[in-house]
């Protein structure tokens, strides 16, 4: 079995595990109950998604798919920050 | 250099140049603070647009075939191309000239305005969008240009930001407008999905070849995907919804009476006179060139035509009836726009598959002639009445009473404009309505033909109310400032002369316009449209095959 096939098989094996985790995160994100809960769930989901996207780019044999992961991680952090600001501050600009 | 590939730089340069002019304007605001500069800048670029648009018209007439400009040098289905036939060239000249007059009027109008630099930027953007919509030969580029046009229009409607009605009208216009263009995008997805191309000429070619039983062969976009009939029908249905929204046809007219009056007066003129034309233009382009009488959608197209005829009548009646009860002058004019759009749609919906080509082109000629008349007349009215509104600071007809006495010259021009829209004999409006009536009769549509007269008759009430109010009643309030009106006076005078000329020279004008329609929408016209595209593509294919 060549390295290529072995890596692909391996990623196929972890594929369902990741998907199960995403669905569980999504359940929490939809359930809430509070806003920080939802954002935290999206947050955790997306950082894992970023990791998974990198793994998937090996699966698809297209390394150029990588930048998606970094952009996703960056903007999810920004989402955290402004939800936090929304909850905390009186004015978004202060 | 092959003759087929003659590069019409004036076609390609015009619209990007205007866009670039708009891009650069905010840069100058950081350096130059004098208003004169911005006046001159905007006037200069709109003059350039006028010159180039006129040149394009002359060029189209001289070449005798649609002008094709391939951006980036890529052959059409691969790249974007502008394809200007006589129809779009005529509308281009109309747009550029009315827009030039509107800009000239704006020089006076903005004399006390704060934020005029943003106003001018948006006005240039509006002109870019208008001309781009008319010249483009690519359905997706049409979507982009529609957005350029729309976003400038939303922003200009909301320009008086401290007036609640203005902002609300812009919101209503904007949110449904954005939905409409998104729906149009879905239609494009269907078109690309089924026909595999976005170029107008290519779509026209394919839709004709399917009927002829020949496999759809096109140099760069061979073949079909899925069920082209359903996809194209759906695409037409969706895109017509978007276009009739832009044109403010009856069920989609609800935004217009709010949005048009609330904009600054020159912008009202542009919106009512020019922006709605784009909707009309796109409908004509889709129903006559892309999926024309020879296309594979004949039965569906006929149904659409009938629907448009009914909606046109409804639009005409609703506009005319509601116009009579308005007390706000600009709102009255806006309802008049709805009514006239109804008439124009009646003209363009004659060409079902059952009528002969001659009658169809006659109807289209009437629609085009009426479009021209309506644009000039409506822009004249908005600007003429706008002078009084600006002087007295109100739009209420009661408070404006007698204001015509302030400037008999402007009042005279306004009366000419009203007569034009009413359809009084020596003016253009009369002849276009007559032509419309005639074409409806020839198509055997007696009831709609009678309704044209009924609509005109109903609308006369509203117009007479304004004329009477402005002219015959005594002046109630003293004006703020009357001096220094040379510019608006010149503008309305020019437009009034144009109205008269459109009427007096009617045989000539009709001849010219009929020639344009014949060159664009008869069977041979559409074939020319396709051939311009094909000759380029075939040249490239030959080159690739040989090298």
């Amino acid at each position, binding site marked *: 079995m060549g390295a290529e096939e072995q890596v692909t098989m391996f990623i196929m094996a972890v594929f369902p595990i990741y998907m199960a985790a995403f669905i569980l995160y999504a359940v929490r994100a939809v359930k809430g109950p509070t806003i920080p809960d939802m954002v935290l769930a999206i947050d955790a989901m997306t950082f894992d998604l970023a990791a998974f996207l990198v793994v998937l780019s090996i699966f698809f044999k297209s390394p150029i798919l990588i930048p*998606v992961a970094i952009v996703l991680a960056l903007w999810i952090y920004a989402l955290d920050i402004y939800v936090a600001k*929304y909850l905390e501050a009186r004015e978004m600009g202060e | 250099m092959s003759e087929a590939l003659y590069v019409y730089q004036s076609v390609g340069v015009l619209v990007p140049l205007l866009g670039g002019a708009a891009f650069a304007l905010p840069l100058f605001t950081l350096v130059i603070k004098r208003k004169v500069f911005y006046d001159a800048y905007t006037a200069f670029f709109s003059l350039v647009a006028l010159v180039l648009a006129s040149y394009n018209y002359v060029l189209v007439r001289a070449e005798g075939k649609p002008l094709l400009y391939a951006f980036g040098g890529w052959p059409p289905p691969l790249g974007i191309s502008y394809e200007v036939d006589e129809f779009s060239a005529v509308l281009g000249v109309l747009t550029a000239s009315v827009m030039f007059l509107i800009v000239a009027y704006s020089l006076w109008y903005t004399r006390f305005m704060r934020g005029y630099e943003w106003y001018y930027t948006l006005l240039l953007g509006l002109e870019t969008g208008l001309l781009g919509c008319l010249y483009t030969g690519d359905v997706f580029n049409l979507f982009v240009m529609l957005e350029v046009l729309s976003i400038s229009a939303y922003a200009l409607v909301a320009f008086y930001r401290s007036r609640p009605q203005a902002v609300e009208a812009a919101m209503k216009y904007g949110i449904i407008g954005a939905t409409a263009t998104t729906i149009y995008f879905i239609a494009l997805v269907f078109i690309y999905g089924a026909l595999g191309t976005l170029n107008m000429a290519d779509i026209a070619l394919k839709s004709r070849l399917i009927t002829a039983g020949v496999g759809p062969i096109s140099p760069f976009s061979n073949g079909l995907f899925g069920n082209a009939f359903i996809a194209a029908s759906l695409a037409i249905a969706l895109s017509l919804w978007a276009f009739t929204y832009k044109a403010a046809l009856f069920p989609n007219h609800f935004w217009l009476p709010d949005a048009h009056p609330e904009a600054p007066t020159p912008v009202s003129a542009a919106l009512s006179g020019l922006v709605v034309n784009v909707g009309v233009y796109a409908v004509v382009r889709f129903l006559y060139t892309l999926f024309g009488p020879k296309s594979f959608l004949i039965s569906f197209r006929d149904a659409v035509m009938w629907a448009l005829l009914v909606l046109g009548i409804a639009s005409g009646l609703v506009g005319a009836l509601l116009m009579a009860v308005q007390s706000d002058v600009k709102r009255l004019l806006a309802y008049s726009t709805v009514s006239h759009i109804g008439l124009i749609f009646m003209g363009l919906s004659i060409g079902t598959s059952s009528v002969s080509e001659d009658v169809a082109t006659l109807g289209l000629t009437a629609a085009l002639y009426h479009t021209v008349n309506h644009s000039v007349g409506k822009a004249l009215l908005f600007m003429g009445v706008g002078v009084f509104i600006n002087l007295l600071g109100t739009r209420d007809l009661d408070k404006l009473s007698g204001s015509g006495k302030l400037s008999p010259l402007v009042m005279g021009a306004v009366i000419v404009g009203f007569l034009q829209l009413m359809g009084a004999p020596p003016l253009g409006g009369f002849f276009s309505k007559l032509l419309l009536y005639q074409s409806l009769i020839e198509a055997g549509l007696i009831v709609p033909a009678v309704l044209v007269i009924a609509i005109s008759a109903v609308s006369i009430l509203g117009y007479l109310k304004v004329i009477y109010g402005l002219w015959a009643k005594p002046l109630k309030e003293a004006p703020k400032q009357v001096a220094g009106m040379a510019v608006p006076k010149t503008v309305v005078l020019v437009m009034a002369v144009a109205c008269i000329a459109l009427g007096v020279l009617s045989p000539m004008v009709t001849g010219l316009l009929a020639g344009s329609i014949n060159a664009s929408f008869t069977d041979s016209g559409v074939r020319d449209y396709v051939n311009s595209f094909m000759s380029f593509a075939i040249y490239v294919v030959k080159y690739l095959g040989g090298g």
Partner: protein
Amino acid sequence: MPSYETFVMGVLAILGLVSMVAAILAILERDLVKAVIFSAIQSTAYAFMYYLLMAPDIALVYIPVAIGLYPAVVLFLIKKTERYEGD
């Protein structure tokens, strides 16, 4: 026989359903902040979908716009206006 392609299609189907649930909740939710966050979930599902449909360019545009900018702008807006949709 399930192939690799089936897995990708399956994930796409799951993402479609997730986005549908999130979109319905976003439209029906009365608390606008929660609606924004639901629409962020929907956008995340779409972004993943674009990735699986081999459109990294679109994902790269879509993520800043739909996950980053829309929620930010709308949250700014909600902060300045009102949080609950009237009934």
